[in-house]
């Protein structure tokens, strides 16, 4: 009965699974076919945006606006895509661009304009604007009504922002400043900041509040844009007339940066140390124990509005723009609606942009509190200036906008990445003296500027020849295979079986060829190319061995990532194996509830990588982390301080921290060892006992040799996975400080997806493959000395 029921349930599940898969295919197929054969002759415009901080409300506002647009423009059908937050948005956008099928209209942050324009991805809008004026279109955009700096942010002339053609209509923006806790200011007896406050006022207030018990004066984030904003208040900047000429050598720039470093590291309590990975960023302010937090833009407001009023245990807060140094300054951070250079419908797309960037939509989006409308009249309306909601000083953002400048970025995304990671080592974690950190930045950026790969004029990748060659090769291979099949060595029956076998395996074979073999071959080809991952493949240039030459002769960051990865592997592989084996020995004992213990040991292995990484970031936090809280009482009597894992001591302790974290995941390895242990014949151990061997001798003379094939398997798997560390370092440190926790795979990711050097990344990936393969071969080669295999053949 029970068996019949079991079978029925099994059948039901199987049928359900088949139906589900079938349904998925049918619906997608029907949709695509429907689109192909639809009698709808309207023009389809694809719009893509994100709604990260704005959440569902932003999603709904855009949707409603698009519906209004569709009603007004019956000839245009709009398809909307919202991948979620900004990071997912850019990933999807890049994938769509690379595939040659980008959306027509989409968000672009001003910081991405130089690189996107450099890649030829965006349509210049000046002609469309002029045509509107000429035709006197009723809802035409008048850029004079916009905050000028927001418009300037989307101009780019190939070298610098602020001039040249217009590549986007800013939809909203923010200026930056500090959010301040009114209650802490009152408690410390500090005057509230005014819009024209100075850095002296700022640090005096921070010091005063820092003296309150358990309080810190301010959180000062050192993001590249904010560091440049900070320098601008002293009339300075990182870049000179161009990005090739840095101003970091100027005494004034150094002094200004050193002042910030000194506030953070020479004093206690004025600024958060920045050593803590958790206690940084906008969320620190929510604790109510930090007097000020910034420089942040308007985007933190929705989350700060959730702070309860003082009567309910929260606190009152407000906004103050950037303090003055030798001058008043601020920056604009803005997002535009832009049009793809590849769009087939530029006029329809422009009509949509005009609508979405228009005043009505801007007013609606302003109610989210997330950003400021770029059209002055909308920004100065109650839609934005809402006196019923904090911050009180909404006008502060607008006053700052009058003096705000754009922070332009190099078309080479490495500038921002290098500036961030190198200067942070001097300013934030302080694991490197500031002059050295600056020198590192200058050295690495100069190396990047003089990178021969970037300057070289390269021939186009001979895709046509490669395609013809591959097809020829494939055809020859296929013929050879068919001939071999037809050769006399097979009987008719065998041939039939062979054919049936291939037919049955064909779904997998086709899947393998399409999804595994093809990308593998492509990445091999791309290793010899220079290709921006966001442009069509046709734009790839042939480099020959130049990628490899660059990697092995000039790429210091590659060498660092190899060092970090090896240092990790050297620690993680042996300790992981040892601990897993010891755990398996424990789990192999016969005690009550052993299944519970086994499950408990295995449990971490099934947890998701990102969540676990976030958890471990807390564990290794230098200031309040569990690890250091546990180590401190042990080490302090010896006069040793626990390491700042991802801070000043990251060079030595960063990789080991990840190795310690990896020990949390030994459950899978342990299970394999446990299975191996249970295969060790009991009578061998008994024979050894009778032969006079004690428990230790039995373990080393019998158990261990019998386990050696399992040890070999686990070791190889561990070596391979030790070279694949990505999620942890991506989530926990982003490779920082500097490159001290930048594992090879993370570096490959950075090159491919942050710097758009997909060819270079492919070359790195193949080097990784060769390294892993050689290590595996070495382990295998030595194995016949120590691995005992039952049953003969080795």
């Amino acid at each position, binding site marked *: 009965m029970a068996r019949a029921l079991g079978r029925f349930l099994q059948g039901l599940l199987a049928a359900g699974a088949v139906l589900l898969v079938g349904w998925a295919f049918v619906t997608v197929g029907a949709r695509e076919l429907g689109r192909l054969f639809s009698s709808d002759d309207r023009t389809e415009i694809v719009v893509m945006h994100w709604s990260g901080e704005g959440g569902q409300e932003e999603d709904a506002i855009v949707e409603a606006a698009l519906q209004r647009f569709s009603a007004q423009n019956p000839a245009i059908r709009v398809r909307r895509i919202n991948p979620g937050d900004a990071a997912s948005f850019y990933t999807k956008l890049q994938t769509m661009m690379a595939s040659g099928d980008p959306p027509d209209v989409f968000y672009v942050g001003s910081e991405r304009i130089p690189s996107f324009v450099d890649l030829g991805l965006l349509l210049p809008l000046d002609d469309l604007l002029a045509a509107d004026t000429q035709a006197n279109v009723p809802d035409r955009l008048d850029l004079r009504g916009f905050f000028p700096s927001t418009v300037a942010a989307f101009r780019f002339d190939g070298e610098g922002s602020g001039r040249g053609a217009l590549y986007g209509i800013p939809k909203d923006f923010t200026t930056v400043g500090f959010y301040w806790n009114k209650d802490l200011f009152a408690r410390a007896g500090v005057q509230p900041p005014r819009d024209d406050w100075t850095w002296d006022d700022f640090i005096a207030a921070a010091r005063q509040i820092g003296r309150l018990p358990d309080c810190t004066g301010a959180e000062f984030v050192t993001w590249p844009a904010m560091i440049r904003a900070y320098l601008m208040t002293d009339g300075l900047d990182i870049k000179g007339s161009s990005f090739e000429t840095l101003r970091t050598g100027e005494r004034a720039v150094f002094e200004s940066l050193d002042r910030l470093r000194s506030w953070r590291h020479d004093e206690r309590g004025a600024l958060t140390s920045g050593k803590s990975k958790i206690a940084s960023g906008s969320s620190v302010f929510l604790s109510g124990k930090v007097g000020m937090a910034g420089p942040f833009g308007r985007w933190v407001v929705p989350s700060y509005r959730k702070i309860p009023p003082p009567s309910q245990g929260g606190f009152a807060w407000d906004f103050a723009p950037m303090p003055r140094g030798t001058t008043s300054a601020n920056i604009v951070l803005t997002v535009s609606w832009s049009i793809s250079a590849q769009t087939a419908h530029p006029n329809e797309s422009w009509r949509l942009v005009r609508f979405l960037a228009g005043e009505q939509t801007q007013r609606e989006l302003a109610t989210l509190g997330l950003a400021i409308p770029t059209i002055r009249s909308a920004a100065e309306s109650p839609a934005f200036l809402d006196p019923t909601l904090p911050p009180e000083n909404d006008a502060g953002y607008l006053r700052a906008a009058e003096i705000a400048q754009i922070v332009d970025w190099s078309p080479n995304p490495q500038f921002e990445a290098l500036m961030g990671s190198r200067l942070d080592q001097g300013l934030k974690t302080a694991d490197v003296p500031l002059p050295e950190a600056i020198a590192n930045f200058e050295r690495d950026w100069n190396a990047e500027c003089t990178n021969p790969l970037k300057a070289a004029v390269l021939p186009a990748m001979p895709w046509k020849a490669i395609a013809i060659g591959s097809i020829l090769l494939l055809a020859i291979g296929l013929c050879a295979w068919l001939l071999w099949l037809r050769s006399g060595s097979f009987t008719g029956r065998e041939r039939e079986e062979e054919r049936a076998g291939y037919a049955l395996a064909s779904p997998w074979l086709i899947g393998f060829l399409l999804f595994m073999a093809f990308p593998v071959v492509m990445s091999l080809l791309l290793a010899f190319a220079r290709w921006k991952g966001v442009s069509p493949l046709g734009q790839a240039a042939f480099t020959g061995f130049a990628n490899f030459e660059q990697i092995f002769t000039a790429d210091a960051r590659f060498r660092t990532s190899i060092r970090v990865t090896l240092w990790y592997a050297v620690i993680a592989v042996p300790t992981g194996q040892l601990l897993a084996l010891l755990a398996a020995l424990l789990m192999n004992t016969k005690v009550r509830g052993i299944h519970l213990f086994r499950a408990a040991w295995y449990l971490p292995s099934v947890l998701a990588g990102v969540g676990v990484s976030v958890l471990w970031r807390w564990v290794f936090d230098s200031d309040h982390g569990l690890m250091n809280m546990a180590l401190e009482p042990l080490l302090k009597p010896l006069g040793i301080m626990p390491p700042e894992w991802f801070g000043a001591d990251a060079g030595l302790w960063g990789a080991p921290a990840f190795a310690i974290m990896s020990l949390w995941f030994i459950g899978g390895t342990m299970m394999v060892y446990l299975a191996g242990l249970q295969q060790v014949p009991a*009578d061998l151990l*008994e024979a*050894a006992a*009778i*032969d*006079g061997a004690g428990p230790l001798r039995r373990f080393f003379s019998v158990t261990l040799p*019998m386990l*050696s094939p399992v040890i070999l398997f686990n070791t190889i798997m561990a070596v391979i996975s030790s070279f694949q560390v990505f999620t942890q370092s991506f989530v926990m440190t982003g490779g920082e400080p500097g490159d001290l926790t930048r594992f090879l795979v993370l570096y490959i990711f950075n090159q491919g997806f942050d710097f758009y050097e997909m060819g270079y990344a492919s070359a790195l990936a193949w080097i990784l493959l060769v390294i892993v393969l050689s290590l595996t071969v070495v382990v295998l080669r030595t194995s016949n000395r120590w691995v005992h295999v039952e049953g003969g053949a080795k």
Partner: protein
Amino acid sequence: MAPVSLQSVSKVYANGVKAVDSVSLSIADGEFVVLVGPSGCGKSTTLRMIAGLEEISAGSLLVGGARMNDVPARNRNMAMVFQNYALYPHLDVRRNMAFGLERRRTHGSVIKAVLSPSYRAARAAEQQAIDTRVTAAAATLGIQSLLQRKPRELSGGQRQRVAVGRALVRDPVAFLFDEPLSNLDAKLRGEMRTELRLLHQRLRATMVYVTHDQEEAMSLADRLVVMKDGVVQQVGTPSEVYGHPANRFVAGFVGTPSMNFIQGSIEAAGVFRWGGGALQLPPTRWTGLSGWHGKPVELGIRPDQIRVGTGSCKGRVITVENYGDRMDVVIESGGRRITSRLPTASIREGSETTFEPMLDAAHLFDPSAAGATLA
């Protein structure tokens, strides 16, 4: 070598199962004792308790007069041959045989050997002695040519010899064998039996041997211990156990083909009445059974004690198994099947025949579960 003595030894598992129930047994120095019984009778458990591989739940184990209950296996200095040989698969034959000796050497420390030249010399001498003993044991068993091989390169019989050799090189207080021949084919089993017997004759060592094969037990043992359900049924020489079984179980277990059992009852004047008629028991068989008159008893008679073609009992031949030198004939009579073993004769299956049990050699058993021997 030393005598081994079990005093009311019991084994009760955690789940309450009593595997061995108060076994008492004295094994003399140099004696070859075989524990025999059907599977699950507790014979292996008893052996493993002697070896120290199973804890003794109750009772005492004495070896050479010393109580060994709490001495771990490795310190009991016994040698054991396992059913599956239990050869270390990663070591060659020489290292397999030397393993036990190496564990017991007095100069075992490698570190001391590195530090002290005199220790190193002593260690080398010890190693030399071990090699000599291994070589000698291998010569005894005719496996000198196999010393460099790994177990997986050996045949079943060769592995068996190595397993014996591993026990042999040591100088244990007792040799323990746990069904060592059951994985061999019949012919090899026969050969090994002879060799083990010869080995015992030469070594005069205390040997405890476990088997479920009563023929093997009979052929090897100085003394047999027949066990059933954890309880010793009978201890005696093979002749004693065969000729004078303590109960119906022992009678049925020992001997091939099995003893015939015929249910019936005793009438006055020593007449045994059963479905096939009445049999007059000789006076030696029924004196002292006056209390059983009129009650059901079981008559046991070995197949070789039944003559066919003569006597008063009638039956029909249903099968004939001809072995060339002898034949086993199964006769159906009075609703029972009776096996007779006799020299070859011309008997056809299906033919009617007469037969006669030689009642001088018959046994009478209590028909209850205990099956005690009455006469």
